[in-house]
């Protein structure tokens, strides 16, 4: 409810539809979180998982779905009876969706948590229909990943230094390049790494030439050597944004940008023109 304020009311929980005429009453909501959150208060079931133990909980659910006996009293802070109870609910759904938050990738296990979650969904599809969707962090990050994927084959951390796209997270990902001090110049476009990268990465950003291209004054702009304000896409300029379920939406311009303000694309074209001259 906090990270995606419109998610429950507009898309998933309270909406009424052909198969769910009573909306919320026709659905079962399970919230898994280390904290008792606002979302958990509107859920039918709240499962408090211990931090760093998502992998264990997913594995236990998979075991329970397969009818395997779990030889422990609790897994990841959740009593085993509860795990079996949840497994039954998941198996008996007519159409289930697993929405996973970014937190799964930010604690122990990282991408392996996601791998296990995908396996859980595969297992559940032996019984009924289940899909999964990631709850993305910021506006239109889905768009960035989609475009990068259909142009290079990789969703993020793409390295072009060899003349062709290469992808090796940990080696070619932004945070790692910065914390290892390999990057000697940076351009941040419509993102705010100054606010959302860990201290070691931001320390490197402060040391090297930094260009910030953003409609708003941000912590990145604060550290930047050059700040370029641009028009706001979807408000001051038309453009396409991807919805969290990867559906592209065309957005019309609704107000004029301040006079002389370029949009991101126009600015980059001017930069490329200059680079080609050099």
């Amino acid at each position, binding site marked *: 409810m906090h990270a995606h304020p419109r998610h429950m009311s507009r898309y998933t929980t309270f909406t009424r539809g052909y198969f769910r005429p009573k909306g919320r009453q026709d659905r079962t909501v399970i919230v898994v979180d280390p904290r008792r959150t606002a979302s958990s208060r509107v859920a039918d079931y709240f499962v408090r998982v211990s931090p760093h133990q998502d992998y264990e909980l997913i594995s236990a659910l998979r075991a329970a779905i397969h009818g395997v006996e779990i030889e422990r009293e609790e897994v990841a802070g959740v009593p085993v009876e509860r795990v079996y109870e949840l497994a039954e609910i998941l198996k008996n759904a007519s159409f289930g969706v697993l929405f996973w938050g970014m937190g799964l990738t930010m*604690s122990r296990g990282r991408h392996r948590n996601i791998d296990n979650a995908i396996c859980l969904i595969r297992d559940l599809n032996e019984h009924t229909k289940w899909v999964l969707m990631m709850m993305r962090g910021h506006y239109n990050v889905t768009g960035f990943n989609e475009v990068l994927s259909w142009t290079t084959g990789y969703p993020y951390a793409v390295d072009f230094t060899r003349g062709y796209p290469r992808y090796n997270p940990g080696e070619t990902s932004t945070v790692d390049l910065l914390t290892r001090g390999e990057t000697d110049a940076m351009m941040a476009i419509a993102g705010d790494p100054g606010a959302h990268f860990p201290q070691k990465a931001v320390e490197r950003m402060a040391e090297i030439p930094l260009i910030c291209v953003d409609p708003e004054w941000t912590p990145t702009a604060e550290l930047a050597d050059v700040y370029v304000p641009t028009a706001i896409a979807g408000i001051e300029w038309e453009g396409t944004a991807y919805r969290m379920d990867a559906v592209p939406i065309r957005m019309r311009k609704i107000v004029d940008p301040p006079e002389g303000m370029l949009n991101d694309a126009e600015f980059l074209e001017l930069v490329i023109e200059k680079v080609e001259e050099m």
Partner: protein
Amino acid sequence: MAEFLLLTGRTIWQGEAIETAKDEDIYPKAVAVCYFHPADMEELGIEEGDPVRVKSEHGEIVVEARAADVDVPARGQVFIPMGPWANRVVDPDTASTGMPGFKGVKVEIEPTDEEPIKDMSELMRRTYLRAED
């Protein structure tokens, strides 16, 4: 001083602040804070709004203590909304995925007399540009 497990992440107020203005009061009010289980605050001898020093092996930061009412962390866990304040103490290691450890960071917390920096500009300049003011 007491040991806690730090989680960082979104709150509705953090979301409101970053879409409003990161260089205005609304931002530090939303993110330069640390949410506790009320019983943990009592044990530490701190009250709503008291400054606390949060230290991890990666850095430290002074923020304002708040008793969580809606999104309540478990005992022994604290929550700082994502932002440049929280990111002083998170784990920069990405375990070869590109994603740092924003959740489940071991921290030590103690009450302090030092006032938190409540201005985004000042925080960035003093911490990263080593500016005096």
